């Protein structure tokens, strides 16, 4: 109850933070390690993601990509190594702290809030909402419920725009649990974008999304990158990686195999052998 | 709709009962309810111009439900109620219903000393005595008759058990004895062995066991399968139950009990009446139940109206000395006499039933009983207290 008023200074329209301390990459991972019952899922991976880029992450199934995401975002506590966001260490912090610090992720297997409507799912996303404090939500007056209502109205407009863009408007009032597989992925992505973080970690957001829609979503991601957002994208579709990514990180057996611009990665012997298969 | 104020002519005496038909006291509550019906049956079977109506509501052995039960009786115009049994419930119902709604209550089972000082506007009476006396009688029995100079107490952890433990221990110690352990137990535990071990670990001369027959039979089973029957056991009236030896499956010859049971002249008559009517042995407390029910009907007859205040005014006159003696044997005629305006005094199954100014019994008689080898219960002595 004590901290419920602490969000009064929050500003929902925060601009993406492009000018972090000179040259510090927004996300830096150093020697990350994580094992499960003897399986080394992540084994000393180090990489960094530059501000304002769309960085791809590829690698065979089981290479440790999702586990790396889990360690960065606080869903797993790494066994070793450090994670820095804008130069500040966030290793082992709680997921919500990391999200509040400006780093948000999606889940590979879409996790919808099944008995909430699509609208509610999206309304939830933005951080530091006014009415998330208990007293503000309840008490009348311009510093209370009335201002909450105002910010809710504003948010509502944004949410509807997003719905249109993701072709989900006709489902706005449906429970998220009734969506089709691809629609779930869309909702997952839309929710993360609405949270409006500086850095976005997307775990196969486009798997199962229809190609036509996929194209439009990638355009949207590019727009956001142009606005200064930073993306780390796990994707198995090499066409997407080749045409949209600035840089590519290739993981294999828990470690970074190669890192570099798409063209060089594509032709890298090791990558071809471990990941792409012979005939590319 | 107003409950009629008929004078003479045909009258129906209304009385309610709030008893535990379900819940933890239901094993006593159900047979006691049947006992409570006996006076009604007597009146209605007799060829008089008075008849009686009894309505029963389930207390579920729960104060909250007791309130609901009493309220529903009050709403149906029952001016007098027998019960509830549980002291906690009686206190709560008094505050919530009996006092404000002016209903006379006579309980056969609430033995808490707190009832004596309860602010009840004289609407609450009881035919059973306060545990303040029983605890003393038990302590006296333990030291004098059983000859124990040290004792441990095992008691059920409710108002009844706690009050008896308190008065027993106080008296026993002030008589020079030592209390080795006071062990609270639940009413329905799976096993009492560990608690018994705690009580027995310092080798007390005697064990004082407060329990109800349901949990009590289990407790005694556990005792007999783990300890020698050389240790005498003292029990209060709740453990006077003819079915107990059969249920325990052992002779209870090391048990000495104190019960305020039935020193009234009509007790055997009521027992016979019950067996005849229900084809079963009488439950513990039956005589108090009968008397509570009977005295409310008698006072109602004397009052001539189904009206709480007027019945209250008749409670002491019909119970206390002076007047024609009414007893369970001639109960129906007695009711008719009272209805006709004759001064009566009730002498019941449990005692002579004389109320003091608190609504408690003026004089209480305790029987000291033992269980014989063949399982029968025998009274071997009596102890008498007069209210101070």
């Amino acid at each position, binding site marked *: 109850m004590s901290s419920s008023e602490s969000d009064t200074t929050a500003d929902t329209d925060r601009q993406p933070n492009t000018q972090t301390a000179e040259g510090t990459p927004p996300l830096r991972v150093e020697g990350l390690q994580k094992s499960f019952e003897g399986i080394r899922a992540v084994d000393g991976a180090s990489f960094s993601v530059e501000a304002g880029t769309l960085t791809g992450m590829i690698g065979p199934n089981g290479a440790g990509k999702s586990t790396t995401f889990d360690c960065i975002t606080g869903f797993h506590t790494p066994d070793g190594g450090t994670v820095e966001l804008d130069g500040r260490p966030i290793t082992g912090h709680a*997921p919500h702290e990391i999200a509040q610090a400006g780093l948000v992720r999606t889940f590979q297997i879409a996790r919808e809030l099944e008995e909430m409507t699509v609208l509610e799912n999206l309304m939830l996303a933005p951080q530091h909402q006014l009415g998330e404090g208990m007293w503000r939500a309840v008490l009348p007056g311009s510093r209370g419920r009335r201002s909450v209502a105002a910010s809710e109205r504003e948010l509502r407009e944004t949410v509807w725009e997003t719905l249109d863009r993701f072709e989900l408007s006709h489902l706005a009032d449906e429970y998220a649990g009734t969506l089709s597989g691809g629609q779930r992925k869309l909702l997952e992505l839309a929710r993360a974008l609405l949270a409006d973080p500086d850095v976005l970690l997307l775990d196969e957001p486009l798997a199962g999304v229809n190609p036509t829609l996929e194209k439009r979503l990638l355009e949207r991601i590019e727009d956001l990158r142009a606005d200064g957002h930073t993306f780390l994208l796990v994707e198995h579709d090499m066409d997407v990686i080749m045409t949209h990514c600035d840089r590519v990180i290739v993981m294999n057996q828990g470690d970074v195999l190669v890192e570099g611009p798409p063209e060089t990665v594509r032709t890298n012997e090791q990558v071809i052998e471990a990941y792409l298969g012979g005939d590319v | *709709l107003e409950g009629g104020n008929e004078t003479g002519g045909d009258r129906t005496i209304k009385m309610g009962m709030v008893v535990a*038909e379900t819940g933890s006291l239901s094993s006593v509550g159900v047979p006691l309810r049947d006992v409570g019906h006996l006076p009604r049956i007597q009146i209605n079977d007799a060829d008089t111009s008075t008849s009686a109506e009894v309505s029963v509501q389930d207390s579920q052995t729960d104060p909250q439900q007791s309130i609901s039960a009493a309220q529903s009786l009050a709403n149906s115009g029952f001016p007098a109620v027998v019960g509830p049994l549980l002291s906690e419930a009686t206190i709560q119902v008094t505050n919530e219903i009996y006092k*404000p709604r002016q209903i006379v209550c006579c309980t056969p089972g609430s033995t808490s000393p707190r009832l004596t000082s309860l602010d009840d506007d004289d609407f609450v009476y009881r035919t059973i005595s306060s545990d303040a006396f029983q605890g003393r009688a038990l302590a006296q029995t333990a030291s004098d008759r059983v000859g124990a100079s040290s004792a441990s107490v095992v008691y059920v952890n409710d108002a009844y058990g706690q009050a008896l433990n308190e008065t027993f221990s106080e008296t026993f110690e002030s008589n020079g004895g030592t209390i080795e352990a006071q062990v609270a137990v639940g009413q329905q535990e799976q096993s009492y062995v560990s608690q018994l071990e705690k009580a027995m670990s310092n080798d007390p001369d005697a064990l004082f066991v407060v329990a109800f027959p349901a949990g009590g039979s289990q407790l005694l089973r556990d005792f007999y399968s783990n300890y020698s029957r050389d240790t005498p056991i003292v029990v209060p009236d709740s453990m006077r139950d003819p079915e107990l030896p059969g249920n325990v499956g052992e002779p209870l010859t090391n048990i000495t009990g104190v019960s305020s049971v039935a020193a009234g002249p009509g007790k055997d008559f009521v027992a016979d009446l019950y067996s005849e009517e229900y084809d079963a042995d009488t439950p513990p407390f039956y005589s108090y139940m009968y008397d509570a029910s009977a005295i409310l009907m008698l006072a109602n007859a004397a009052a001539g109206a189904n009206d709480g205040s007027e019945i209250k005014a008749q409670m002491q006159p019909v119970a206390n000395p002076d007047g024609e003696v009414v007893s369970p044997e001639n109960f129906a005629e007695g009711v008719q006499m009272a209805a006709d305006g004759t001064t009566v005094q009730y002498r019941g199954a449990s005692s002579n039933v004389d109320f003091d100014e608190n609504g408690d019994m003026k004089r209480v008689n305790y029987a000291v009983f033992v269980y014989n080898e063949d399982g029968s219960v025998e009274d071997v002595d009596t102890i008498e207290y007069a209210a101070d």
Partner: protein
Amino acid sequence: MTDGTHPSRIEWFTEEVPGGDAALVAAVMGALYVGFTALSLLVGVTLTGLVSGLQGITFFAAVYALAALALNLQWGYAGLFNVGVAGFMAVGVYTMAILTRPVNPDTGVGGFGLPLVVGVLGGIAIAALLGFVAAVPALRVRDDYLAIITVGLGEIVRLTVNSQTFARVDVFGVTTGTGGANGLSLPQNPVDALFYVNPDSPAEGATILGDALFGVASSVGIPNAVALSWAYTLVVVGFVGLFYVYLARLANSPFGRVLKAIREDEMVAEALGKDTNRFKITAFVVGCALMGLTGILWQGSQGFTSPANYLPQQTFYIFIALIIGGAGSNTGSVLGGALFAGLLFRGPPLLANTVEAFADFGRAPTTVIDAVIPLASADPFPLLAFLFDHIAALRFMLVGAVLIYLIQNRPQGLLGHRKETASTVSLARGGTDEQ
């Protein structure tokens, strides 16, 4: 979830009553009143009896509504399965009693002699504090585990206040305690002070308000006591309104939205930067505080409380009330409280009275075997008499059957089908109306 098999009638009723939710509640209460009055008239109840009976129904309806509302915040919204409701009520009531009981009284254990307001606030605060303590493990375990932890906590509270060890203790030089199994007297209910100059001795006369109330009451032949009970009951009903407004606002806000998200998938909420622990603790603690207050309002009129009031089944009853209404819906909680109190709590005894008034089955056999054998010779009366003799047990079987029927045919409760969107404003495209 939504199976389309039993939609129509109930939904039509709950959605089409003109006047919205307030009218819906009023309609249900009205129906209960009518039913109760009809049965009462059948058995020949006096006017006083009727008025008092309606008071009883209203009081319990209000108390169960309060408890169900508080539980709805925890379970309906945040998915926190609190099965220790009775324990939190007990803590509220006992704290209030110990704080307000006179120092060294003539009878019973003493207390700190503080004013009633302090007692009530103290009761709420300590219930909240216990809620906080319970919330610590609650942060780490989910649903079933939390359920059993809170059951355990409720039992710990009850066994502790029941124990002779704490019946009488010295705290800061004051002799006080729980009174053990014997229970504890509570202060005079403050509503009486509105009507009597000195509520401890009504003989000293009534206040102006009191004169008015008693005047009206006596003109129709209703005793003062019944009128006073109604007054207290109306205060409790007022609290239902306050709870409702507070909780509805809380639920329909970004705060409530996060709670719902936690109920659905805590990880998602975390990933979106919601400090789920804070929300869970807040919801749980607030719910427990409200339960403490509910306990005080419930026991407050009775002048006395004892551990026997706080058995686990008390919590079950509250759950049943909430389920009838539909978890997740505040209006549903109120309806559920009313229906539980009216139909399951007070209804069956009244029905039994009615049957008793009109039927006589003769003497009941003592065992079921004796009751069934005559059936062979086509004589059903021994069995009927036997069953009527066991009406109390049958009543519980009825409650069980009703519960099963309801959950099979209407699992989402009366109002659980509603999509009550958690937001302060309507979310319709371009909508403007506030919720």
